[in-house]
């Protein structure tokens, strides 16, 4: 999280934290374990009132940021989401809201307002079944047929696919990318729930079988959406990274406290050098994760040319080292760290899910190698 947020940002972060403490304390998270949606509409509306879904929406569309850098402000919300293992489709809602705002088509205003007020939920259908689950491999077909577009293909995992009122679908028309806003319930759309390790997040397979919509459902240009899709990936990666750092911070704080409280052989765990050194390593990974997550988010918010590689560095580092931190937190707790009763797994789940979405560490390392080629002019 930002080392020195300004006072408005800090107030915003605190207000979010307070709302999360009130609405989704850990007891509530446990209750939501068996809930098909994973969050309550009222909770989401309250968050939307605070601005959770309008920070990337331009002021002319009724949105607006706190600091002038909406993605940075949003990363504060995401960080608190991680610290509370909070429910709700934060990344995908914002991706859709940002894109509807960026394209500014008046016909989408009503949907955008519903997303900003929290009345409606939108999600992003991006990833596809393996082996097409990599960032660059979109194959869902969007065909232009007269005044219509016709969608065929399968997307997974789609966050909140069963709850979403609107689906932003990224597909291909020939070589180019095309994005279509599909209302839930459109003929030919079928949604099948997936299993997941997260307690409150829900994921689905969404199939598009000759889904026909008027061409006005296309967001942006047919075949010309690649720039917007990349921006959407940047948004999602930035949010997931900030959220994972929040989850790491919560797990780390909990484990430090445990090390002070837990005694064995008449001494607190925190007095053993073998364990202290592991805490030092974890603290280092944690601070490094804060640093790269913030730098990448700021770079993305300002559309800096190094944004993509910083985001990849953040996603790869936090994916690998965040996971190691979580596993070490489990190890330092001992058996209790693997029980449902203990809270540690709430954060561990979140970090684990985020590691696997929007590019694994290995995929982002490949992107970083590409960036190194560009530096060296050796592509």
């Amino acid at each position, binding site marked *: 999280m930002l*080392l*020195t947020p300004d006072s408005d940002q800090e107030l915003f972060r605190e207000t979010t934290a307070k709302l999360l403490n009130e609405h989704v304390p850990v007891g509530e998270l446990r209750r939501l374990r068996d809930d098909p949606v994973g969050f309550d509409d009222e909770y989401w509306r309250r968050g939307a009132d605070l601005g959770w879904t309008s920070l990337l929406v331009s002021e002319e569309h009724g949105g607006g940021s706190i600091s002038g850098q909406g993605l940075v402000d949003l990363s504060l919300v995401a960080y608190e989401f991680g610290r509370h293992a909070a429910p709700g489709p934060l990344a995908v809602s914002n991706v859709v809201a940002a894109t509807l705002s960026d394209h500014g088509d008046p016909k989408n205003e009503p949907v955008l307002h519903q997303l900003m007020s929290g009345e409606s939920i939108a999600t992003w259908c991006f990833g596809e079944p393996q082996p097409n689950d990599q960032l660059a491999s979109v194959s869902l077909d969007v065909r232009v047929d007269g005044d219509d577009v016709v969608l065929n293909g399968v997307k997974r995992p789609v966050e909140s696919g069963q709850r979403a009122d609107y689906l932003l679908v990224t597909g291909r028309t020939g070589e180019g990318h095309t994005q279509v806003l599909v209302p839930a319930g459109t003929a030919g759309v079928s949604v099948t729930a997936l299993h997941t390790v997260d307690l409150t997040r829900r994921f689905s397979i969404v199939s598009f079988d000759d889904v026909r919509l008027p061409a006005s459902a296309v967001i942006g240009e047919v075949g010309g959406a690649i720039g917007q899709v990349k921006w959407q990936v940047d948004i999602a990666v930035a949010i997931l990274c900030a959220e994972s750092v929040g989850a790491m911070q919560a797990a780390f704080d909990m484990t*430090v406290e445990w*090390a*002070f409280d837990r005694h064995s052989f008449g001494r*607190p765990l*925190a*007095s053993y*050098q073998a364990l*202290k*050194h592991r*805490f*030092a*390593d974890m*603290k*280092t990974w944690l*601070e*490094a994760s*804060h*640093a*790269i997550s*913030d*730098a990448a988010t700021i770079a993305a918010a300002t559309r800096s040319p190094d944004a993509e*590689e*910083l985001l*990849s*560095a*953040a996603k*790869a*580092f936090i994916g690998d080292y965040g996971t190691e931190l979580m596993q070490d937190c489990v190890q330092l707790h001992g058996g209790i760290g693997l029980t449902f009763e203990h809270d540690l797994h709430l954060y561990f789940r979140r970090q684990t899910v985020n590691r696997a979405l929007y590019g694994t560490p*290995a995929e*982002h*390392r*490949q*992107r*970083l*190698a590409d*960036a*190194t*080629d560009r*530096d*060296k002019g*050796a592509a």
Partner: protein
Amino acid sequence: MSDEEDLESFRQRARTFVRSELRPVAPHGSGGILRPDLTDQEELAAVAREREVQRKLFDAGLAGICFPRDYGGQGLTHAHQRVLNEELSGYEYPARIQAPTFSPCAAVLLDFGTEDQKQRHIPAILKGDEIWMQFLSEPGGGSDVAGALTSAVRDGDEWVLNGSKIWTTGAWWSDWALCLARTNWDVPKHRGLTVFVLPLRREGIEVHRIEMLNGSKEFCQEFLTDVRVHDTDRIGQVDEGWTVGTRWMFHERMLTNSPLVTLPAGNSHGGGGASSVHGIARDSGRLHDPYIRDLIGEERMLRLVGNELRRRIGEGTSSGAMPDQSAAIGRLFSGITSARITTIGFEISGSAGAAWSDDDGELAQRGGDFLMRQVSCIGGGTTEMARNVISERVLGMPRERALDRDVAFRDVPRSASPRP
């Protein structure tokens, strides 16, 4: 300050100077660790050129960007220093004069020196006239810095120093040293230390060069025999050397993140942005092998993360958002990361890591680098000490039990035979 030079005009000034006065350097590989590539004559010539470059920087108003103007510095900000670093990218710079001369040595002088001491040494340092060493580690113990055995005994207005210091890089061509010595043996170890400055070429100081396992002879050991130092060369109060020493080690851990240090952007000194393994992959013909690309990506990730971590710690410690001791976090990360990158380079070198020819380009000497890998986790305070500092001083965990606390230092058990 209202008349502070704005960053853009500073950049133009720096750029004009760098391009007209300094020599471009080939982006040679890098990642090599203390390679004995230069003969002594070449090394001395390189030192002389660096002094010259430092003098040029001084004359151009580009030396000591964050040093006070009263002592010949520019009184500018860390942001100006970063601009200079960017403009120096790809050009020669006084690499050997940065650490430990500017930080920690000059930093300690700024923190604790008297007005006379600062006037005498800081401008000389900024002009390239004085290259400094740290007389900190001793053969009897590296990590236990406060257990120094080098003694200083008062004799009128003078002090007489005896003992031995070790792990000074390039002491054989350096000028001055900041020296931690024991002045009181009857109190616990932290309370009987005092810091002095002394010229290296003085009667009673013998400098021996240590041969490292790869043939490098840049590390030195000094033997001090009845070296006389005037009391005006004392830094801080008598027996309060640990107050100085604590700050000294903070500056040391800040390393290249110090605003007092110049480091061209992209240079790989414990981090930086440039890849050292991309060239190895290129010369190995395996640049497109997905496994190798995974390693190249890992190196880039570590460098980018390291840069941002150092920036965060720099901002955090100067704003007070993080305790000074957080510098140990940066030190730990740099050490571990450099070691990992050396391993990656060795891995990509394949069998050339074991046996190479001079024609192997970037693949050459990677085996030697690998043997020297742990330098990054030992030099400048071991990573184990950094872990102690992080856990105890940053996280507040219980201190390790020490048998030398609250005991007169003369009664503390010592190593049977200090290893040279």
